[in-house]
């Protein structure tokens, strides 16, 4: 069966720094995968690469069958990325934001209602401008505007960050549901205990390369993370 993500010696330079230093990775459709690793290991860059937002400096890659060197535009249409930033417009209300991204993705207004419902963005919150939300509410609105996309590959960068207990559970349900429906879910997170309940396949990212691993709650490489990082120099 075709891989959902397939990377071969993938190198990504941010500026002149090798954020990814030769990644080999295969993710099969329907999997739940966790990227774990120290700060600056390259998890975010790896997710953005899979979303077609970073380019390959050298190496090869395919996402959902599209070549990352030549068909990034196709890749972008079929994935959903929850990044560190929320992708919302401050001056629009929550419902306006979610509707905008839903329409952009061709989703219907019932999808919008459903997504808002699931992330408890009902009542007063729906008509509040995003600029007036708390950090966690904002994050919730961001997730809602992604959920409407129904993508084949979910790329979630620290999906639980800032969310309250109830919404954490909602996110877990969403992830399980997506995987059950055949979509692939890739997460990056530091909240290992929390993620463990999703029983993901764990991939360790350290210093720009990946290494398969099994126990999700296992702490990171014993040598201080900063050492691993220092090996890559700005060239």
């Amino acid at each position, binding site marked *: 069966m075709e891989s959902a993500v397939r990377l071969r010696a993938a190198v990504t330079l941010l500026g002149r720094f090798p954020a990814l230093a030769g990644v080999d990775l295969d993710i099969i459709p329907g999997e739940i995968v966790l990227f774990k690793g120290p700060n600056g290991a390259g998890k975010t860059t790896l997710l953005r690469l899979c979303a077609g937002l970073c380019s390959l400096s050298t190496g090869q890659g395919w996402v959902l069958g599209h070549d990352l060197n030549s068909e990034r*535009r196709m890749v*972008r249409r079929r*994935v959903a990325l929850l990044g560190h930033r929320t*992708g919302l417009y401050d001056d629009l209300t929550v419902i306006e934001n979610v509707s905008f991204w839903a329409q952009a993705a061709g989703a219907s207004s019932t999808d919008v209602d459903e997504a808002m419902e699931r992330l408890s963005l009902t009542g007063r919150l729906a008509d509040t*401008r995003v600029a007036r939300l708390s950090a966690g509410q904002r994050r919730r609105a961001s997730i809602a505007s992604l959920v409407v996309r129904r993508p084949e590959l979910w790329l979630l960068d620290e999906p639980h960050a800032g969310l309250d207990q109830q919404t954490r559970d909602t996110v877990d349900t969403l992830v399980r549901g997506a995987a059950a429906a055949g979509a692939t879910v890739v997460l990056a997170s530091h909240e290992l205990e929390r993620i463990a309940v999703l029983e993901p396949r764990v991939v360790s990212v350290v210093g720009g390369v990946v290494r398969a691993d099994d126990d999700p709650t296992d702490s990171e490489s014993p040598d201080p993370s900063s050492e691993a990082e220092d090996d890559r120099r700005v060239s």
Partner: protein
Amino acid sequence: MFRDVWLIAGKDLRIEMRSRVGLNQIVPFAVTVLVLFAFALDTDQEALRTYAPGLFWVTVLLAALLAIGRSFAVDLADGAADRLLLSGIDPIAVFGGKAAAIAVQLVVLEVLLGAGVVLLFDVTVHRYGLLVCAGLAAAAGVATAGTLYGALVAGLGVRETLLPVLLLPVVAPVLIGATRAFQDAFGVAGAEGWAWLGLLAGFAAIYGVFGALSYGALLEEA
């Protein structure tokens, strides 16, 4: 496709209406600049009347810079630009939508500022048709070129200051053409207004086509 142009333009215009930047701030800014000119040039009414078209258009351009800057700033503020890339909307539609929203704002500005010029500088309009056509064509030209250049500098971290540097020399022909056309329309100089209007329309058409075609390549980020 048209649906998407409309979606983007609607979003941008709604944000502008919501934040009231246009009406509450860009227009007063434009009026202030006009008044400053009047101070700085320190001339009599007659001279001001002669210069009115030029000052009007320099002011419109400066205000346009603000509008264009804001249009891209809202996308960049919290990563919406990335999401637009991921949304699957055709880049041509994004270009069209953003340019349309900016053009609408410029036209509103021109109407208000035009009224201001007529009142403050005491000019009389001789050719309404020319005035309206030149105003629309110039707005379209500035909006298309502005959208193209706005995207060019977006996300480079120095947008606010780089945009003017790049855009102002490029829209110089619009400034000249629109000034001449208005001089004709106001009857302050016998310039061949309709010929200049041709220049304006051509400019808008060229930048519209070129912008739409190259926008995809521009957005194919990183």
